[in-house]
């Protein structure tokens, strides 16, 4: 049974099909990449999986259970965690409290305060933020805020983690660190679905990649297959660029 499965997932904004009849399956333990030009519907698909939005039609199943249209907090507690494209940290709270909130509320069984603090501290250490755990989240750099979001998502003990452009806006060093972080999350046995424009990252980290364009799935396959795909190159670089090369 696939860990996460979507069938005919469709979402309209007004008359525009943001996501149109998309099927996908994500297996336990894999890293699944989601790419496509701006406005292709990648973040919308994340919003549909995490129930920030409700699809017009289609179903999403998590370990066989239909989770379409459940409340976001329920989906989080079941084991689907996410980060946000534009970071949404709890600005005035210390980094530690940001993560503690995840430990308190995001897990199926409630933790004691002591355990929550201990776990949150470990997670901040895991993402490399132990030096700034008392710093209010708004005073962290963008790269650190993104790591903080990852720690907060991990605090909810997810089976699958949705990373929405974790590397956007980061410098090359930070990107390398972020890639290494993603690899370590995978080593924990957590399945990863990531939206990314940094091709180096997606090609290195993911086993399978799905390409969206105008809300439709136009390709799916291994990084090698995607890199060689005519349609994908056409969409990313355009007809002329290809002709000229």
């Amino acid at each position, binding site marked *: 049974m696939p860990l996460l499965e979507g069938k005919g997932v469709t979402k309209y904004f007004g008359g525009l099909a943001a996501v149109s009849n998309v099927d996908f399956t994500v297996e336990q333990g894999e890293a699944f990449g989601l790419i496509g030009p701006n406005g292709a519907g990648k973040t919308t698909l994340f919003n549909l999986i995490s129930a920030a939005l409700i699809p017009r039609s289609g179903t999403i199943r998590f370990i066989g259970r239909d989770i379409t249209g459940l409340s976001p*907090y329920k989906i*989080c507690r079941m084991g689907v965690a996410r980060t946000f494209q534009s970071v949404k940290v*709890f600005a005035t709270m210390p980094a530690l409290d940001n993560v503690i*909130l995840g430990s308190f509320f995001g897990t199926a069984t409630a933790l004691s305060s002591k355990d929550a603090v201990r776990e949150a501290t470990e997670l901040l250490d895991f993402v490399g933020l132990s030096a700034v755990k008392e710093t209010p989240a708004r005073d962290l750099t963008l790269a650190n805020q993104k790591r903080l979001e990852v720690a907060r998502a991990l605090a*909810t003990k997810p089976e699958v983690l949705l990373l929405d452009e974790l590397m956007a806006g980061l410098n090359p060093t930070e990107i390398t660190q972020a890639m290494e972080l993603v690899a370590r999350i995978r080593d924990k046995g957590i399945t990863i679905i990531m939206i990314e424009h940094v091709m180096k990252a997606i090609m290195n980290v993911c086993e399978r990649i799905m390409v969206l364009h105008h809300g439709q799935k136009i390709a799916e396959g291994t990084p090698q297959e995607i890199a060689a795909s005519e349609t994908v190159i056409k969409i990313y670089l355009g007809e002329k660029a290809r002709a000229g090369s």
Partner: protein
Amino acid sequence: MDITPLTSKKSLISGAIVLVMLILLAFVPLYAPGYPVVLLSSILMYVILAVSWLVFSGPTGYISLAPAAFFGVGIYASAIIGKALPFPIVVGVGGLASFCLALLVGALTLRLRGIYFAIFTFGLVMLMAHSMLFYELHITGTRGRFVMVMSYNTVYYYMLGIFVLVLLTGYLVKRSRFGLALYGIGQEEDAAAHTGVNVTMVKIITFAISASFMGAAGTVMATKWTYIDPFIAFNPNYSFMPVVMAMFGGMGQLYGPVIGAAILTYLEEFLVTKFAEIYMLIFGAILVVAILYMPNGLVGLIQKLWKQISKRKHAVT
């Protein structure tokens, strides 16, 4: 929210200060009966409204203008069942009725954010006033009602009791994981929802708890007024004043609205007696200056000054 252990030195000291203040307040009717008790009852009433308003609106940032609606429900509870039942039960019913109204209203409106929520909650006050007027004129055939009278001291002690409960609730909310969720909602509601917080439930429950104290305060206050009608009970002033008082005192700390309500209530009394004709004008001017120059309220100002003084001390040594 800081997760310092409960037995830290600082919280012990502030706990002791609060306890001493409460004990002093409890003995006021013995040493200073009469006007001081009446004035303190009014101050406590506003303190209850302002603190219970802050319990919900402070962390979440949802500016509620509904206090007058919940306060008025309490007043009518007193007027309708006050003579038939023992008073503690009446206060409980007043609180519970406000709690239920807030659950209902919260479920309907807490999807609204920002200014829409503020406007809707204010509309609720008007709706309550006019529905009550309609009911009184067409069904009971009167306009107002008489409320049973209670002694000044009874009113005072009930207010003091409710005040202690509000303070305790505010403190517990602030220190608990529930409070952490509330702050999370105030800062990034979507992120809170995707981090496992049942945002709708947390918001509605807190809104209703805060409303129940307003209702209880209304139930007690009605006995001081002896006569009420829909526009006395649902007077929009009881929505605006708590907000203004909380802002004036400072919304960062629980004692901010306590100080704000105490000072502004006293100021209002003073101005009404000395400058009856133009007191609103003076009061308004003071508020404008206060909000312009103390964006974090009185508490924020004091904290800022304190920091500067201690910095200077540091520089000298």
